């Protein structure tokens, strides 16, 4: 019964979406806003990756809200799972191969994550992706090594500090030229590491914040 009702519902939604989709052209030209971003993005921001310029400068306030949503998700998870810690002493330790491999790989995963968020304005990737890679390193550390080298207070401190740095950079722009997240630093030479004004700094802050938040979420879910 339940499946039949679900199928009927899906068919109704399918018909509606199909009727709408026949009016959407596929692979046609861009909107005016996107053309402006592509044609003037380098001049205004100095970053080779236009997506980074859109995320961090044209829609930087949006990104601040997004980071806040992630923060609220992590805090809500902590509230839901509060007080339900199980005793994790009775787990069997992993074998020597697993612990050694995990200890060997962990710094390299951190290095890859840091590389990705430092080069966010030059290559595909950025703060969120690099943060996710760092969190995957912490997941490996949790699954393989069975020790908890990371303290929860440290995670919270990094998270808060990175968020504060993001807001502070935005406020300096406000003081300097009149609006929040103004790109006040010199733009530099295109396609070099030190270019794009404040964009690399913002992505470093976001990378630390997202990495700390996702690692915190992983630890909270695993406990």
């Amino acid at each position, binding site marked *: 019964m339940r499946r039949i009702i679900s199928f009927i519902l899906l068919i109704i939604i399918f018909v509606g979406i199909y009727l709408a*989709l026949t009016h959407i052209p596929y*692979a046609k030209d861009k909107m005016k806003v*996107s053309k402006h971003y592509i044609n003037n993005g*380098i001049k205004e921001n100095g970053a080779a990756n*236009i997506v980074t310029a859109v995320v961090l400068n044209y829609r930087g306030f949006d990104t601040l809200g997004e980071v806040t949503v992630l923060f609220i998700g992590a805090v*809500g998870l902590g509230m839901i*799972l509060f007080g339900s810690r199980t005793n994790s002493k009775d787990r069997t330790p992993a074998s020597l191969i697993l612990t050694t491999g995990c200890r060997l790989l962990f710094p390299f995963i951190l290095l890859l994550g840091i590389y990705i968020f430092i080069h966010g304005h030059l290559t*595909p990737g950025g703060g969120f992706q690099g943060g996710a890679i760092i969190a995957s390193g912490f997941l490996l550390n949790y699954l393989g090594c069975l020790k908890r080298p990371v303290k929860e207070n440290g995670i919270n401190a990094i998270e808060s500090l990175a968020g504060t740095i993001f807001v502070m950079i935005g406020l300096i722009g406000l003081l300097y030229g009149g609006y929040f997240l103004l790109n006040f630093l010199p733009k530099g030479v295109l396609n070099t590491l030190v270019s794009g004004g404040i964009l690399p700094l913002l992505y470093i802050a976001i990378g630390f914040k997202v990495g700390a938040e996702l690692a915190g*979420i992983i630890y909270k879910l695993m406990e």
Partner: protein
Amino acid sequence: MNFLYQNIYYIGAFGLIFIGLYIVAAKKNLIKIIIGLGFISTGINLFLIIIGYIKKGTATIFSKPNLNPAQMVDPVPQALVLTAIVIDVAVLALALGLVIGLYKHYKTLNIRKIRGLKW
């Protein structure tokens, strides 16, 4: 065949969305329902990326000097999808936390056996 060739990306994106909707509507296990939510959000992200695509388009990165800006794909949907993926992670983590709480309270994941969730 021509229809399939022209609309294969839309079919893929909405196929993911419909699979997710079916899982959410018909399955009984709470973990499977959350996986269905993940399917829906992945399909929507794919759909947004597809809308910004251009025939033979390149990524919007000026890594070489001789790239044609008119052939670049739309950067705005990509930036929005970046936002959406991060929010998906937060939502799914919160939902999994709620499921852990429900399991501790009811000792089951079957939503038919949880009182107050029947339909």
